[in-house]
């Protein structure tokens, strides 16, 4: 990947009126890839009288980071119409735009009415129009929802921006650390802490219905796996065996967790039926087996094992007792698999000579495509439409989250100004 042809745009987004964010500040950087093949789209600033959120900017940022579009900078726009009837289409046709979004926000204080239209510039008419009610607090999500509608209309694929991500943060104060498990919008806004401890928290995994998160906590100075219901904050400890209790991963039907336990010797993969608590051992090697993930059909489990000397990915039946076949052969370190929702690709941490990047393995051809620049990228997680991968990265002592499109052309970085952010998990 040629870094030089990346054009870098840095947007600093102070959270302003969003006092709920606990003084956090978020910096979003888009490393915009070559966009010659992106669909030209102009998101005109929405007309508003003092709405607390710039909806047009949020839609623009979402569409930009999808990698599908070439977004028109605001400064290049010849006018700022807020409805189809105000648009002089020849003006925009002359600027090479295929589509444009226009809209307005009406209301004051708590309640707003958001209208938008997606326009086909060459045909000179509207393709889609919506009117939505939104509270002030919910305007960001309304903007993400509009971005999803536009994305789906123009690409035929489901949008993923109005979703959620979970991740772990760590703040150091002297010798003490504060670890938090947080859930936020997909662009890092609206973070909410769902668990917090002075001891490490790790490995969040969303249940398929998005209502629960499983994670590892060392709060009792040993490792235990908890399942927490987001709506209520209630949680259950589902594994606390001697040794490692790690790497929980929900089965696609939500009935089981795959996990890593070392209670019987070296770390092995097990499945745990969440309601009956029946435990089944899946691997029995003398080496390290960990980081299980389910294939989307639930039939197989891919995991990391160093049985061949170095960590590589292997696949086996999720019923156990099957063959365990190695599936990665390029690179001296392949670990921490994440299946694409269609089961065709596996994202992973791909290490060569101490340099760790995110790569994607084509399940059928076994070809590997390295997407990121390293040197310490980890924890890849596919977006629910398979078009992007969220991962954690480090620069100096700052840990941040990044998203990269499946073709590697577009990268976006979210830097939270306090502490280290890691282990992102995109809600399914």
């Amino acid at each position: 990947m040629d870094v030089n042809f990346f054009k870098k745009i840095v947007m600093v987004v102070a959270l302003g009126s969003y006092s709920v964010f606990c003084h956090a500040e978020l910096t979003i950087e888009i490393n915009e890839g070559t966009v010659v093949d992106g669909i030209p789209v102009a998101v005109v600033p929405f007309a508003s009288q003092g709405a607390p959120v710039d909806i047009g900017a949020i839609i623009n940022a979402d569409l930009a980071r999808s990698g599908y579009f070439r977004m028109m900078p605001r400064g290049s726009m010849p006018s700022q119409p807020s409805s189809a009837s105000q648009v002089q289409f020849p003006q925009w046709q002359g600027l090479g735009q295929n589509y444009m979004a226009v809209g307005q926000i009406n209301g004051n204080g708590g309640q707003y009415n958001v209208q938008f239209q997606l326009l086909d510039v060459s045909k000179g008419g509207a393709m889609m129009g919506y009117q939505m009610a939104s509270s002030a607090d919910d305007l960001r999500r309304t903007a993400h929802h509009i971005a999803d509608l536009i994305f789906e209309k123009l690409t035929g694929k489901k949008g993923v921006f109005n979703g959620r991500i979970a991740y772990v943060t760590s703040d150091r104060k002297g010798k003490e650390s504060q670890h938090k498990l947080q859930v936020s919008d997909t662009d890092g806004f609206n973070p909410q802490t769902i668990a917090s401890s002075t001891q490490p928290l790790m490995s969040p995994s969303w249940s398929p219905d998005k209502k629960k998160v499983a994670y590892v906590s060392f709060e009792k100075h040993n490792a235990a796996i908890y399942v927490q219901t987001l709506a209520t904050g209630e949680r259950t400890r589902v594994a606390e065996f001697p040794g490692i209790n790690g790497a929980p991963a929900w089965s696609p039907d939500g009935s089981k967790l795959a996990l890593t336990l070392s209670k019987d010797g070296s770390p092995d993969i097990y499945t745990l039926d969440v309601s009956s608590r029946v435990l089944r051992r899946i691997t029995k090697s003398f080496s390290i087996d960990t980081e299980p993930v389910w294939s989307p059909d639930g039939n197989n489990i891919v995991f990391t094992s160093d049985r061949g000397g170095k960590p590589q990915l292997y696949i086996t039946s999720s019923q156990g007792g099957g063959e365990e076949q190695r599936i990665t052969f390029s690179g001296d370190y392949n670990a921490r698999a994440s299946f694409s929702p269609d089961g065709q690709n596996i994202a992973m941490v791909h290490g060569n000579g101490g340099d760790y990047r995110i790569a994607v393995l084509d399940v059928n051809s076994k070809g590997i495509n390295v997407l990121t620049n390293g040197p310490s990228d980890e924890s890849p997680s596919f977006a629910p439409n398979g078009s992007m991968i969220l991962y954690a990265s480090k620069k100096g002592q700052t840990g941040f989250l990044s998203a990269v499109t499946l073709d590697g052309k577009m990268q976006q970085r979210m830097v939270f100004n306090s502490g280290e952010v890691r282990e992102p998990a995109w809600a399914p």
Partner: protein
Amino acid sequence: MKFNKTILTLLVITALVGCSSDDETDPLAAGTLNGPGGVNTDASTSGLNGAGGIDGSGLNGSGVMNGAGGMNGSGNSKYPNAAIGPEFSDPRNPLSKSIIYFSLDSSEIQADFVPIVAAHAQYLAAHPSQRVTLEGHGDERGSREYNIALGEQRGKTVAGKLTLQGTSDSQLDNVSYGEEKPAAFGSDESAWEQNRRVELVYQGR
């Protein structure tokens, strides 16, 4: 108006949760995960898909668990086991060293550390009621759960050496923190080599 307008009414959710202003110091008991009560949301959607995430799952307020008691918070940072006996803070005594370091991707005990492990084995054999937790750690490179496994492997290697030399299994506990509790913060070899370690944490220290 010539456009085709679809009305989508989204009943608005207020998934707003107040941040606890004192969440760093909040001494809530371990296990309580119902923090400052979040505003429960009542959401419904009509018209086109309310899917895509505008659902009403109200994320409730933050929960704070504290790490009850500190196994790491010993007062003497140079000789963390000093409270066990004078030999643990005598720099001429190998017992004063409580950290075994490892090379990259390895859980072999290097020659330098063999006498240190032997001294601890001898002490533990002579004090059968003394318990020790072996805390395994790794450097930051590679994936986190794999590093948990590597840290455990290092702890088990030390445990194996100790038991070979007379320590009883029942005196030993193992926990691996992987790369989650670095001793040195930094992304270079000098930080990494300080982080690939097993700490012998004497109970009661």
